[in-house]
């Protein structure tokens, strides 16, 4: 997933939680980047017709941006489920975040051919927990992980 897709996914999830535009500061926090970097990428996304930025309100995705963000989110769900089902990784939440920048759409599609994913994906994704709710039900967060 390239950097632009990671931004689109993060904006989408914040919009879902806020039910409105994503504030630049919150987006920067979510991605662990500086506000200046976030602003630069928002400008690029605007230029590509994927997002609209309104001063003092924040950034909203266009219809095309939403489609792209949902694809990125679907890829993220695939990475999480692949880590659990195939590689049996217990800390799949942490590792999915580490891997997402190197796993593009095509790799995710190939991994998708060997996992058992539900059709409601990516609507199954819980933005607050940063995990697929179906996966969360099967593999609840251990207390020790939650405390980290």
């Amino acid at each position, binding site marked *: 997933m390239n950097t632009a897709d990671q931004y689109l996914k993060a904006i989408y999830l914040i919009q879902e939680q806020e039910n409105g535009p994503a504030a630049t500061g919150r987006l920067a926090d*979510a991605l662990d980047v500086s506000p200046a970097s976030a602003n630069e990428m928002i400008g690029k996304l605007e230029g590509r017709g994927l997002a609209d930025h309104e001063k003092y309100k924040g950034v909203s995705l266009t219809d095309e941006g939403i489609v792209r963000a949902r694809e990125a989110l679907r890829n993220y769900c695939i990475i999480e489920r692949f880590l659990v089902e*195939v*590689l049996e990784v217990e800390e799949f939440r942490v590792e999915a975040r580490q891997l997402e*920048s190197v796993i593009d759409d095509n790799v995710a599609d190939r*991994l998708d051919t060997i996992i058992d994913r539900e059709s409601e994906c990516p609507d199954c994704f819980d933005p607050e927990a940063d995990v697929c709710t179906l996966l969360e039900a099967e593999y609840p967060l251990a207390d020790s992980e939650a405390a980290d």
Partner: protein
Amino acid sequence: MSVTRQIRSDHQLARLLQIGMVLEEVVEARAAKHVQELDDEALDDEVRALLEHAAEESADHRRRLEALVAELDAESVPFDQIEALVEAQYGQTKPEDFDGVLYDQLYNEETAYKFYDDVIDAIEASEARFSIDRGRLVETLASIREEEADGVKEVTDLMEAR
């Protein structure tokens, strides 16, 4: 969440190599499945040879990745595990016809090529010290990447010739 593309540890590197192994195993298992599923009329000698060569090459790549994973003191992903998963999901993901098989093969080769390219970039951008020689690691991955590029050309040539 982080937007960096760096690899910070042996563990992360091993995980990426394991994913590379899985991609190779998927190619190997799917190519074998295509040969098994398509009848002889649909599968001429040229395409059969292409799929068999792809499966052999993937098996070789898998073994080279497996050696690197072992050096990082991590577990390999057994081929029979991935073969069983491909078998279980094949009904929902199989190409519909002969053209679909060639597209599937092209997609496999292109996906693998781009994956190794991204992993090499991530290794080169990383300042981490790995317990495996970085030069040999990149050389191995670059050599596999070039064979994937040749694979893309082979499939494309065959598609254009038909």
